[in-house]
């Protein structure tokens, strides 16, 4: 199976235009940006913490992602199914994998755009103190990988429904599940499966990156996580076809 980048680009352009051709995409980005700035600056008060670090930001982003990513991915397949454009797409000379990749990369780019809108936070910290820049870069790398993993999962979930709200809610639940799987209170319930669950959870790997530790195990985990959900998405579409 050889993929055509020009086909992927066509799908990508179509999807990215869907995000940016309506005011909703921009309103969404503005609300996200204001909200994350508010959380970072006031919960707890940045000046009371008196620390030139973005730990608080990265910590809030884990929670914000549980709502942000489902909102980005909910319409990717569900809307196509509802409007019937899915049939048109499948009659086009694109391979399933090309369509999935185009959609996935467009969602990832939109997330990148959202993350870029937070770039003023490290810049402003840098003007008043000297933060550990490598730690900040590590944190953003963690956020990108976490987002990429959630998008792959959200894209897969979006395939199973025509209703965007249902896709949104199920993706929130799935993100939440994969997130809390690494938390002690959840692991308590898992008995001997605890260590396996801990390893399978995204929080276990994201926390390590957010602390500034670059570990090939975490990178590999995220890459395989993305790979498996993309493949499952491919499998589900091919099965339906």
């Amino acid at each position, binding site marked *: 199976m050889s993929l055509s980048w020009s086909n992927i680009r066509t799908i990508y352009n179509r999807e990215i235009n869907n995000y*940016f*051709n309506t*005011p909703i995409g*921009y309103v969404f*980005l*503005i609300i996200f*940006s204001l909200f994350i*700035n508010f959380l*970072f*600056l006031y919960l707890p008060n940045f*000046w*009371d913490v*008196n*620390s*030139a*670090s973005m*730990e608080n930001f990265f910590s809030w982003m884990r929670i914000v992602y549980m709502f942000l990513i489902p909102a980005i991915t909910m319409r990717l397949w569900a809307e196509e199914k509802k409007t019937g454009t899915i049939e048109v797409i499948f009659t086009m000379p694109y391979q399933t994998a090309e369509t999935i990749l185009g959609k996935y990369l467009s969602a990832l780019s939109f997330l990148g755009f959202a993350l870029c*809108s*937070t770039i*003023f*936070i490290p810049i*402003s910290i840098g*003007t*008043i*103190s*000297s*933060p*550990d*820049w*490598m*730690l900040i*870069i*590590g944190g953003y790398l963690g956020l990108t990988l976490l987002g990429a993993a959630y998008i792959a999962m959200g894209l897969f979930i979006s395939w199973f429904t025509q209703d965007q709200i249902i896709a949104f809610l199920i993706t929130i639940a799935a993100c939440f599940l994969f997130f809390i799987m*690494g938390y*002690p209170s959840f*692991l*308590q*319930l898992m008995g001997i499966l*605890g*260590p396996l669950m*801990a*390893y399978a959870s995204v929080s*276990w790997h994201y*926390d390590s990156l957010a*602390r*500034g*530790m*670059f*570990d*090939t*195990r975490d990178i*590999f*985990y995220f890459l*395989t996580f993305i*790979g*498996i959900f993309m*493949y*499952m998405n491919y*499998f589900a579409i*091919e099965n339906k076809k």
Partner: protein
Amino acid sequence: MTQSKTMIETMNKIINKFQNSRKVTLMLALALFVLVNWLNYGFYVRFDLSASGRYRLTGASKDILRNLPEKVTIEAYFSKDISEAYMQPVKQLRDFLEEYASSSHGRVHLLFLNPDEDEKIMQKARSLGIQPMPIGSVDRKKQEVSRVFLSLALYYEDKTQVIPDILRQSQALEYFLTANIYKMAHPTERNIGLLETGGEFATTSGDNPFHSLEILDKSMQTFYGNMISVKADAEEISDNISVLFIVSPHKLTEMEKYHIDQFIMRGGKVILASGGVDINFNNLVATPKEKDVLEFFSNYGIAIHPDMVYDSKNYIPFRQPVNMLQMIEIPYPVWLAIPSESLNQGSLLTKNFKYLVFPWASSITPDSSKIQDPKITVLASSSSRSWLKTEGIAINPEMLKNSLDNLPPDSEMKPAVLACDIEGKFTSYFAGRKLPAGTKNYVPKSEHPGRIVVVSTPFAFTNNIQPVSLAQNMNINFFLSTLDVMHGLDELVKSRNRIQTENPMIGPVDMWMKNLMVIFNFMLPLIFISGYAVLRFMTRNRLSKKVYSAMSGAGVKEGESNA
């Protein structure tokens, strides 16, 4: 023959079925995901991205380990059945220990032992005095405390050292390990003496945190042990004391002066933490110290002035409660925050520190004329926007909150020296003076070069209160680094500095800057996103108009041609 043919056909059918079954492919992919991750778990590369290298082994630790004369064995007594709440920190500890051993180029032999699985190991742990540690875990129905082994035993030649409960020391584990291994490999006596002068400063926790050296004393335990109380009024200071710590003496008797003087003359090393004023915490005023005490120290090239340094630029604000929930910050220019720019980056004592905080400090002037072969290093100074106050010094925050409204003229503003490192041969304070009665073996001049590190406030090393206490780790590390350097253990300094607070503090920031930052963070993304939106919509509109006009133009032409 026919049978084997049928068998091959059946096999081919099965293979084809499997090949065509997407479900099987999916199951295989999932299994591959688990397998690959499991394999990857054992073979990995890990490195710390942070500039401070808080999870990275310092070059100093590596050097110490690689240059050990003999091999060291670390036995890690780790229980396997650890509460889920501690799985992540224990995993980090294991990773760290493995990295620690592999960085030593074979000088460290690491063994993980589980006493819960083997009675012999359990007995060995007990014989070393290693006990399981209680750690809390929340069970489904009730809160439980389980007991687990998380301790280390270090073996070097015939010496054994146990580090119990490493989970609680995980932040500073590298230093703990390296310091203990170094201590076993280089067993020189290192005793730190605390001069008792009848003042209020003590290693116990008293009523006033500003007079307690308890945290400093505890921080020294790992490597230097507790401070030894030294009484200089009755007998001479023993040469077993490697460094003498003098904290803001109110007054000194002639005999005390004599013994301190002779300790310095014999090449003894001193850390002096004293300002030129004494602070009364009952009425919150500072009064000049006894001239006699200041004059004594000035003999060694240290002129401590009876004043207080006010800094309008680098200070820690005072937090005043407004009600149960709210705190306000008021200017408090006598809690001096000294950023790295004002710390000597050329000296190992202050290198790499992002901040030090000196509360209620006086100015000092090093005087090289009183020292032979002097080597004077200024370690810390206040900003160029600081001034000195010599009379009516109040430390009441209420009285100082408006102090920045009426600043002295620019001519009075200048940096003040707050800490310095003085090395050289000193002349006895008693040269040309009458010796106290009953003294013997008087040494009039330094036999060997001595060293005195002066910090112009005793409160840099006391327990303190928030927000000054947030910088305590760094202040204590500065003290310990000074001890390391005075003992010639320059390599340990880097390893120790790892324990510095993880995130650099933000210095005093003006209110306008704070507001600007808020506006900057809220407005700029808004402007950029809206700007991009407008630009995109305009481009699209222009494009649609072009397309529309092109299409309508084409339509007209078509019509014309038809006509």
